């Protein structure tokens, strides 16, 4: 295939991000040429405020240096402004005469500061705040002059004012309204902000209407409409931005406030031309923040790569102020109306203010001042439309208060010392993470995981890591999108794929990968395991399991240990056993010289330290003693834990052990999205701890309470009550139906607890309790899939299946 030519106008964050996304998908599809007006590579424009405040250097905020362009074979024309686009000949022409022909063109010309058309606005020392050049002008002015005036009390203006103050200037902020940052803050928060900025030495002239810039060649002052004046050697206008659309307009592309694009970021006039970033108007909105631009980049790259499944549907944005020492966050509708309620917390002494606007138990907006650790959490709840009624009482106290992060509620990420351990699994401290984010220029949770390992294991610190990202990056942090692709090999989500498998009868892995445009030929460990499970679940009788698409524990039917040996757990139904069985296990343990034996949390016996090549013969011996695999290694039914029950216990109301055995006989061997634990307690004293299991039965005198979605692991969750039934037969049917619903609906590696929180208990109740035909159908499908699942894998392997897997090849002379 002949390579096509792709030209990018605008060497900024939006355009280059699009190229990066495209190179990930299709590195070879295009010859790429980039025109940039500024004489630099791509730098992180959002970090200009820290550069102005001397907290960072230009070098630290460079995102792509010359070597990056060279490495990807991209021709970069630095310092060349494109003045003409010839759509007929598909050619762009720069002011110096450089031309480039395109098959596809990306316009990412960004925006410029809006300069007030005041008398004297063209004097020396009157600038905007937009690029490195402006920052250099400000830094130079601070060396020689004393008085600075910043016009505009919004986000950018305050950041500029703070930077100039830090450079030693006497700074006045002129604002036309009576409160600062009125687009992001309500009055109480704005007042707190103004107080703390005044305490730092900034002066404010509120409700001030600028009339004229005074001076001869260079500015000397500013006059207001009321006649008053203020001295100024430098005037920074930060009253807003306007999209750069002149070039697009000149070649006839339809523009309103920005260049109008569709959901694939193509201009509505010419589909060969894409536009992206701050110069764009999408569904009526022109964005001025970085999170939307990154989402746009991803979609445009997907379209340029001709994968064509992504659409941009707009972004909900949030704001943070990048002024060191001032914590401020806002998102959504934080003012409210007649339909909304608000929860407010204000501690003026401590400088803390929080307001959350609610409607129908969902967050519509939030303003936080002084303590913004939970900003990204509120933002996520808002974007997801999560029903917060269950924790409304403690909502203002934040996520840590929910015990959600698995850490001490007192830990507040902003105030933690650098030595504080954030990720307990991998021993990663706050300092390591912040350093990696700033030095390696990380933007996303995935990147932090890859570089630091924080949150890459059990995931319980994900909330803390996201807070750190938000805290370190400020407004440019884009929270993880709600719909995540299955893995990095595809843009399709778990749900897309599960539905596609059924709808289009995609019954092999290559068919699924082909249909959903996989970017890797064999997939990766994440998607191969997931697809293998999804296909097994969808086609229980036809699909041939692929051992190479299973994690080693499931392939070897034992848990791999740190020294490469395995553990062996025979199934003991309901946790019951006989003296003879114990004797047999003891004899086998002796025969194989098992170094360590322990009782598991699920009432089974675990033998450790077995070399892989001995597994088949040990299993044969266990088979002969009447044992089958305990599946202690699988994303499968693990154990049914029971208490003593009415047979012996003076409190027991039902035969919990007997019911436990029946449930384990029904469910063993079934593959699931994740591990699955059951328990049966004989009375509400609940000695089998049934209310922290995936499916728990609590026997009562009048019948059986069925509980679902518990978890005793990373994040402890007590079950929800599903319903109460009368007979053991009903318990079995509800149990089988619930498992089948979980098998068919949950994402691979999603335990029942997060699954239920995602889809809602109501949906589960509807399917299992209310809709009787559906319950019957689910149970029938479960029984069908069990016919092929309940074959003991140990016996198959002991009889010679996949012998190669377990037999090393010895080479000797």
């Amino acid at each position, binding site marked *: 295939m002949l390579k096509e030519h792709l030209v990018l106008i605008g060497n900024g964050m939006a355009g280059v991000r699009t190229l990066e996304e495209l190179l990930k998908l299709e590195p070879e599809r295009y010859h790429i040429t980039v025109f940039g007006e500024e004489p630099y590579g791509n730098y992180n424009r959002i970090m200009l405020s820290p550069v102005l405040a001397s907290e960072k250097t230009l070098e630290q905020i460079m995102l792509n240096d010359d070597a990056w362009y060279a490495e990807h074979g991209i021709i970069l024309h630095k310092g060349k402004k494109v003045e003409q686009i010839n759509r007929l000949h598909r050619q762009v022409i720069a002011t110096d005469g450089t031309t480039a022909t395109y098959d596809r063109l990306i316009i990412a010309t960004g925006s410029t500061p809006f300069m007030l058309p005041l008398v004297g606005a063209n004097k020396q020392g009157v600038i905007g705040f937009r690029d490195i050049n402006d920052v250099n002008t400000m830094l130079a002015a601070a060396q020689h002059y004393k008085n600075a005036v910043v016009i505009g009390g919004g986000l950018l203006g305050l950041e500029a004012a703070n930077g100039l103050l830090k450079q030693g200037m006497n700074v006045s902020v002129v604002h036309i309204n009576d409160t600062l940052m009125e687009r992001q803050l309500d009055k109480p928060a704005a007042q707190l902000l103004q107080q703390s900025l005044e305490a730092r030495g900034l002066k404010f002239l509120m409700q001030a209407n600028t009339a004229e810039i005074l001076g001869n060649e260079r500015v000397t002052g500013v006059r207001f409409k009321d006649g008053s004046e203020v001295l100024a050697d430098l005037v920074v206008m930060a009253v807003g931005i306007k999209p750069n659309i002149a070039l697009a307009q000149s070649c006839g592309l339809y523009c309103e406030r920005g260049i109008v694009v569709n959901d694939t970021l193509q201009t509505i006039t010419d589909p060969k031309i894409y536009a992206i970033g701050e110069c764009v108007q999408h569904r009526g909105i022109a964005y001025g923040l970085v999170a939307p631009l990154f989402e746009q980049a991803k979609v445009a790259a997907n379209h340029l790569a001709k994968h064509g499944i992504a659409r941009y549907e707009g972004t909900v944005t949030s704001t943070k102020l990048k002024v060191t020492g001032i914590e401020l966050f806002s998102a959504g509708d934080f003012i409210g109306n007649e339909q909304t309620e608000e929860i407010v917390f204000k501690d003026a002494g401590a400088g803390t203010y929080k307001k959350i606007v609610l409607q129908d138990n969902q967050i519509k907006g939030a303003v936080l001042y002084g303590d913004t650790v939970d900003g990204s959490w509120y933002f996520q709840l808002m974007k997801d439309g999560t029903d917060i009624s269950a924790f409304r009482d403690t909502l203002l106290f934040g996520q840590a208060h929910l015990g959600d992060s698995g850490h001490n509620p007192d830990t507040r990420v902003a105030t933690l010392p650098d030595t504080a351990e954030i990720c307990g699994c991998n021993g990663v401290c706050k300092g390591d993470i912040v350093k990696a984010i700033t030095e390696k220029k990380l933007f996303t949770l995935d990147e932090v995981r*890859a*570089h630091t390992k924080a949150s890459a294991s059990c995931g319980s610190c994900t909330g803390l890591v996201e807070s750190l990202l938000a805290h370190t990056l400020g407004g440019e942090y884009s929270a993880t999108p709600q719909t995540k692709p299955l893995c990095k090999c595809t843009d399709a989500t778990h749900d897309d794929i599960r539905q596609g498998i059924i709808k289009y009868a995609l019954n092999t892995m290559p068919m699924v990968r082909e249909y959903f445009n996989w970017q*890797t*030929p*064999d*997939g*990766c*460990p994440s998607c*191969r*395991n997931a697809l293998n499970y999804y296909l097994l679940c969808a086609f229980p009788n036809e699909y041939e399991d692929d*051992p*190479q*698409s299973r*994690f*080693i524990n499931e*392939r*070897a039917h034992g848990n*791999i240990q*740190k020294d*490469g040996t395995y553990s062996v757990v025979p199934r003991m139904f309901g946790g019951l056993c006989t003296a003879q069985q114990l004797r047999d296990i003891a004899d086998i343990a002796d025969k194989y010289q098992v170094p360590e034996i322990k009782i598991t949390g699920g009432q089974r016996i675990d033998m450790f330290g077995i070399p*892989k090549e001995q597994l088949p013969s040990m299993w044969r011996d266990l088979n002969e003693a009447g044992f089958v695999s305990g599946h202690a290694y699988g994303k499968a039914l693990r154990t049914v834990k029971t208490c003593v029950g009415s047979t012996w216990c003076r409190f027991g109301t039902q035969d919990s052990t007997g019911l436990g055995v029946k449930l384990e006989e029904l469910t063993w061997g079934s593959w699931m999205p994740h591990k699955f634990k059951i328990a049966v307690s004989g009375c509400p004293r609940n000695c089998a701890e049934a209310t922290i299991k995936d499916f728990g039965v609590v026997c009562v005198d009048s019948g059986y309470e069925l509980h679902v979605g518990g978890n005793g692991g990373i994040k402890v969750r007590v079950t929800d009550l599903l319903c109460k039934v009368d007979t053991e037969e009903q318990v079995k049917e509800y149990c089988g139906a619930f498992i089948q619903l979980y098998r068919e609906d949950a994402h691979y590696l999603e335990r029942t607890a997060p699954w239920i929180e995602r889809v809602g208990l109501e949906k589960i109740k509807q399917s299992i309790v209310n809709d009787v035909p559906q319950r019957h159908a689910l149970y029938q499908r479960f029984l069908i899939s069990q016919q092929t699942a309940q074959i003991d894998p140990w016996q198959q392997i002991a009889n010679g299946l996949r012998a*190669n*897997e377990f037999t*090393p*090849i*010895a*080479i*000797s*002379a």
Partner: protein
Amino acid sequence: MTKWIEVVELDHIPVLGSRLIKTRTKSIAVFRSTDNQVFAINDACPHKKGPLSQGIMHGTTVTCPLHNWKLNLASGEVLAPDQGCANTYPVKIVEGKIYLQLDPESFKDAE
């Protein structure tokens, strides 16, 4: 001095799977890709000695079963952002049989 030693037939390695070769002094994982390329690598991840032969192979990469480090099977290099390297061995396939280039000391019986 090294020598080509026949170790296993191609058909006896599962596609996208591995066989473990044990010599007197070494454990070597031999992998087979979808397009029947064969790679031989020391069966110990440079991170914490995880048995690479037990990992999942994808493309020409293997993911260690213990902590998900990824290694390029051709070069033995660990993929970024992790760092490290495992020994690899020259491989040739002749008439469906796989030969590794090994030091005779590593497979000689202890005498």
